[in-house]
């Protein structure tokens, strides 16, 4: 029974046998063709064997002999002049390539700068959500050229300083010496300070020092923990409690303004 099944299976697949064998042969031939031949050190040995044969004796000194009829020097000079034009054309092609490369390079640079400025503008827009004159002192400059403003920007937030470096990344300027509390404790701090629905909207600035042993400083920069966007709609010195109507900062359209 089993033999019958096997025989039937072979019969069913026999039409694939020839292509299969041919494919295997192709693979063998291909691998042979791709064979890198003698390795470098083997080639070196073959080379040395040949050099050894020549290193035994000097060749017979030859004599300068005329191989062809004398050449007209004037024709040669003319030809050399034409060659100069060829060389200059080659140089022109190289210069054109250089021009095109420079243009692409400039485009990339301009685009990167543009992106940086856009990124910078986005970063600037972010603190406006938590803009509160009682707690946040924004001392950034408004200049006509945003790109020139990048390195000068400093946002002082309740004792912690956050700056933006030349690449547009946020960096902390707070001294590392004061960072002694662990991440865990910071998390627990956040939890306890999380705003509830009943509480007045408060901007909580996480100024807790971070573990000084932790290497990733960019992540550990003091971050601003805000309550939901209702914060922007309520001044801190206001006695009015937030209502459901103020949940969306976009309703009055003014809460996102950094100058508010």
């Amino acid at each position, binding site marked *: 029974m089993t033999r019958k099944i096997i025989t039937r299976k072979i*019969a069913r697949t026999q039409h694939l046998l020839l292509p299969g064998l041919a494919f295997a042969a192709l693979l063998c031939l291909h691998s042979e*063709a791709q064979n890198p031949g003698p390795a470098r050190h083997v080639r070196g040995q073959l080379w040395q064997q040949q050099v050894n044969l020549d290193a035994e004796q*000097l060749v017979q000194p*030859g004599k300068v002999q*005329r191989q062809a009829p004398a050449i007209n020097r004037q024709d040669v000079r003319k030809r050399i002049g034409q*060659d100069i034009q060829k060389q*200059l054309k080659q140089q*022109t092609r190289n210069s054109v390539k250089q*021009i095109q490369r420079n243009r692409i390079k400039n485009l990339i640079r301009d685009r990167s700068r543009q*992106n940086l400025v856009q990124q910078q503008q986005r970063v600037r827009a972010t603190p406006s959500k938590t803009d509160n004159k009682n707690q946040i002192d924004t001392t950034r400059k408004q200049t006509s050229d945003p790109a020139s403003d990048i390195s000068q920007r400093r946002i002082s937030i309740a004792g912690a300083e956050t700056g933006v470096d030349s690449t547009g990344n946020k960096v902390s300027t707070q001294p590392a010496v004061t960072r002694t509390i662990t991440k865990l404790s910071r998390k627990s701090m956040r939890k306890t300070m999380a705003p509830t629905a009943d509480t007045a909207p408060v901007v909580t600035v996480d100024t807790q020092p971070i573990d000084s042993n932790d290497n990733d400083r960019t992540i550990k920069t003091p971050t601003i923990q805000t309550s939901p966007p209702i914060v922007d709609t309520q001044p801190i010195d206001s006695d009015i409690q937030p209502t459901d109507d103020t949940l969306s900062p976009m309703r009055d359209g003014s809460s996102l303004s950094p100058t508010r």
Partner: protein
Amino acid sequence: MTFKPESRYLAEAGRWLCIATIYLSVGTAFAQSSFQHVKNGFALLEKSKPTKAIEAFEQALEAPPKPKTASEKSELLSYTALACFKAGRYVDCLEHFDRAVQLDEQMVDSTYLFYRAQALRALGLRRLERNTWHYLKKWDPQSRFVKLADEALAQKATESTDEIALLIDEGLRLLDDLPAAASAFFYEATLRQPSNTTMDSAVYLAVALNKAGNFNSAVTITQTYKPPKDLEDLWHLQTGLTYMGLNKWVDATTAFKRVAKSSPHYGDATYAQVLCHHNLGEREFATSLLKNIPQHGDLKNTADAFKRIVNKSEPKPRLNL
């Protein structure tokens, strides 16, 4: 899903696969890799068939996988040079060795210098041969070739000043196809002349070195020798082209400025200055010079094309960053 071996579609596919495989197998069987050609080349050298070995090494340069680095290409060129030496084609040997060294300076060793000296000896370029033996001894005093070098230097070489014209003629014959070998003939002719004379062989030597891309040697030549009066313009042009090859745009401009206004090469020199000033970033001056190029062969078309490209408005940004 049931498998149906009798399905004619499957059978048809199998047949086509078979045909394609056989076709590819035959094609691949005859294709040889670059290094297999090298293997064949050395085998042919062992059988004392250097002419066929040259063919094998030349095929190695063209066959896939093509040499990716300059070092690999240089290695293959040196094998060809070796085969050329064994076949008695000393001019080709010089050319291939020089090209190999141009691609990879690491190729310069006592073996290279030995073959160069031997080829020069066989061609009758005895001054250069002696220089090369001296250089070999200085390069590697412990080399196994030093004994042969001493032997060659001990032999007296007979030189004749009548051969100078022959050397220049031979160099001019080789200038277009084998510029590196041609430069050896011009250099020999230059060395055989008294040092205080002006010689046209030095001009041709500069041309050959520039054509071979050996700009560093060309600088040495242009600083050492003086051209005859009637070839001064050509000399300054070659000096400028040498500096252009080394991307020394200021020196190149200085050389091109020396070409006289009355010279037939004045247009070329002015256009070369345009390129130099452009590459120095002095675009406005380059554009003003471009206007002054006299009508001069088809260089005018090149200059116009260059002007169009330089003045072309900025293309639209294609890169979405």
